[in-house]
């Protein structure tokens, strides 16, 4: 199928194809990270995770309209702050949700599933009432648009690079936080043995709240980043949630590194299969591969070595 193209054309396409795989990887990774923390570490099935992403995206949209209206001169810079604000708002709402709802349900994992699903419906309707049913897109600063034209026929989209860098940065910070900080130590201790952690003086309730709110905050960053590649509607969240769970479950729920590997695997597989088959068949083939892999490794790629609670 490639005989009629020059080597250079094929080489360019190969590079761009690698990048589109990486780009999808960063999207999946951002989707999965917050959930890996909440579902993987805390064991809470948060069905409203997608809605937290949508909240982040709406925050950016809100900031964008505010900037346009009151401070158009800040247009080129607002996006960076908007991501920070999205994180803060989602973390705050997450903490509130944990306090009002989740903490009463830690011993009833299936009930959290129902409760958070109900929450997701409430959040969707709130978006619909506040922002309307139409999908919205924030005005993006010019420096995010367009592509690096490396040479004729080889373009690397700037927004893709941006999302990739953001995803890697968030992952790195989260890893350091989990494995090098006091809070991370306490969180891992609480996950492994709640009673014992309490006995040695860890405030497990506080750890739970922080972890949940951190997970939601990361979802907010993810949502903010997605505004560069897609639009946001009241039910965008339900589109994200499937992919997010896919990444976390395939990676092995309790392992952050697993989520990274699984996001990478799924993204590359899908991107390559889409190139050689087509959109629908590529997706079907990817899901088939995942199903088969999970049949042989039900615990995911990187199963937790720790025994459950």
């Amino acid at each position, binding site marked *: 199928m490639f005989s009629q*193209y020059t080597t250079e*054309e*094929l080489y*360019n*396409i190969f590079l*761009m*194809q690698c*990048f*589109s*795989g990486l*780009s*999808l990887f960063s*999207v999946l990774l951002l989707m999965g990270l917050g959930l890996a923390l909440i579902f993987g570490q805390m064991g809470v099935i948060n069905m409203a995770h997608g809605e937290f992403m949508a909240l982040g995206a709406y925050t950016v949209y809100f900031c964008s309209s505010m900037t346009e209206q009151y401070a158009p001169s800040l247009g080129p810079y607002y996006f960076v702050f908007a991501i920070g604000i999205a994180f803060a708002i989602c973390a705050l709402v997450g903490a509130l949700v944990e306090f009002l709802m989740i903490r009463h349900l830690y011993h009833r994992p299936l009930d959290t599933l129902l409760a958070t699903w109900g929450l997701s419906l409430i959040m969707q309707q709130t978006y*619909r009432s506040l922002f309307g*049913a*139409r*999908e*919205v*897109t924030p*005005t993006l600063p010019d420096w995010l*648009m*367009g*592509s690096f*034209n490396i040479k004729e*026929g080889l*373009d690397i*989209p*700037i*927004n*893709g690079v941006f999302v990739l860098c953001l995803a890697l940065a968030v992952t790195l910070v989260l890893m350091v936080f989990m494995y090098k900080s006091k809070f991370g130590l306490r969180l891992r201790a609480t996950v492994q043995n709640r009673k014992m952690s309490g006995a040695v003086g860890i405030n497990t309730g506080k750890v739970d709240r922080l972890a949940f709110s951190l997970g939601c905050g990361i979802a907010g960053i993810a949502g903010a980043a*997605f505004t*560069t*590649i*897609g*639009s946001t*509607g009241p*039910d*965008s969240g339900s*589109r994200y949630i499937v992919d997010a769970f896919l990444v976390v479950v395939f990676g092995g729920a309790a392992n952050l590194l697993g989520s990274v590997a699984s996001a990478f695997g799924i993204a590359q597989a*899908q*991107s*390559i299969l*889409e*190139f050689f088959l*087509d*959109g*629908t068949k*590529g*997706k079907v083939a990817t899901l088939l591969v995942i199903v088969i892999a999970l049949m042989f490794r039900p615990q995911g790629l990187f199963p937790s070595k720790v025994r459950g609670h």
Partner: protein
Amino acid sequence: MKKTNLITRLLAVATLATAATAGAAGPPTATVNTTGLAVTDDTVTVGQLHSATGTMAISETGSIQAEQLAIDQINAAGGVLGRQIKVIKEDGASDWPTFAEKAKKLLVSDKVGTVFGCWTSASRKAVLPVFEKENGMLYYPTFYEGLEQSKNVIYTGQEATQQILAGIDWIAKEKKAKTFYLVGSDYIWPRTSMKIARKHIENVLKGKVVGEEFYALGSTSFGSLINKIKLKKPDVIYAAVVGGSNVSFYKQLAAAGISGAKQTLLTISVTEDEVLGIGGENLTGFYSSMKYFQSLKNPNNGDFVAAFKAKYGASSVIGDVTQAGYLGPWLWKAAVEKAGSFDIDKIAAASPGIELKTAPEGYVKLHPNHHLWSKLRIGQWQKDGQAKVLYESELIEPNPFPKGYQ
């Protein structure tokens, strides 16, 4: 001053479109309603069945607004056969079984005179058996894949051949295009449309289809597709991507350096409504083939746009389907008045041949197959989100069962 001016213009339009019966007391109910519909001496009740919630609400809101506007204008001008129109609004909630259930409620419990509603083909297919069994009348506003015709439905949007053939002919001639890359969302309308497009390109234009792909609804990653397009360098990208995917598709095309300046792209799924989400800057220079654009310059459209903006805000936009939705109540009114009756059978029989000279898109006429004769226009998108109309066809006969295209 401006406001009075607007009202006078509105009244002028309405009066023009209204037959001599307007304002006068209508004929007695017993003679105009022999089948027990919800018609009284001074009112007639109709139904409106769209998705006000759920994923389709984005698209259907415009139709809801336009139908309401038409009904308000008809009422202001004296109603239908001297009766004011009352509306029962039902929400299909983007869920096809809900559509069927609500359709049944409107026809059986509310006994509505007619229904304006549905948007997706899936919802229309869901309610069709209900309308045929309970003998109701549906005015359906969306451009769609064709292959359907019913006594109980009036299709006010274009069927596929009306929208597709003339558009492809134009782009092939204008751009000397030989190779086409077809891209669509994965459901019945894009698939049927692409089938028709492919047959036309291969058999009539003797061109070549170098790729045909469908992506799941809601899909947001088009990286691989864009790379394939870059490799195959088609003369024209022919697109029918819908919903949220649209935004991702065009943003990623723009980011990959595929812009209107370098690449010809013709779409059958982008109206002014979608441009709101995609952003004019991502579409500048691409083409849409539609029967209506907000920027059309004719007196009817000037009045329509002014009235729409006066009611729904200066920032509202009007797409192809919104305009088709606006035609529904007017066509129904014309049919009722021609038949001299609200009875469904008589409306259905009276509908063929009805003309509407006040349509914003210009003159339209109902064909015996219950579709509209209409023109096809090519618009080129500008940065401000409006289209510049570059081409206008003659009136095209609707042909929902095209021979040689199936």
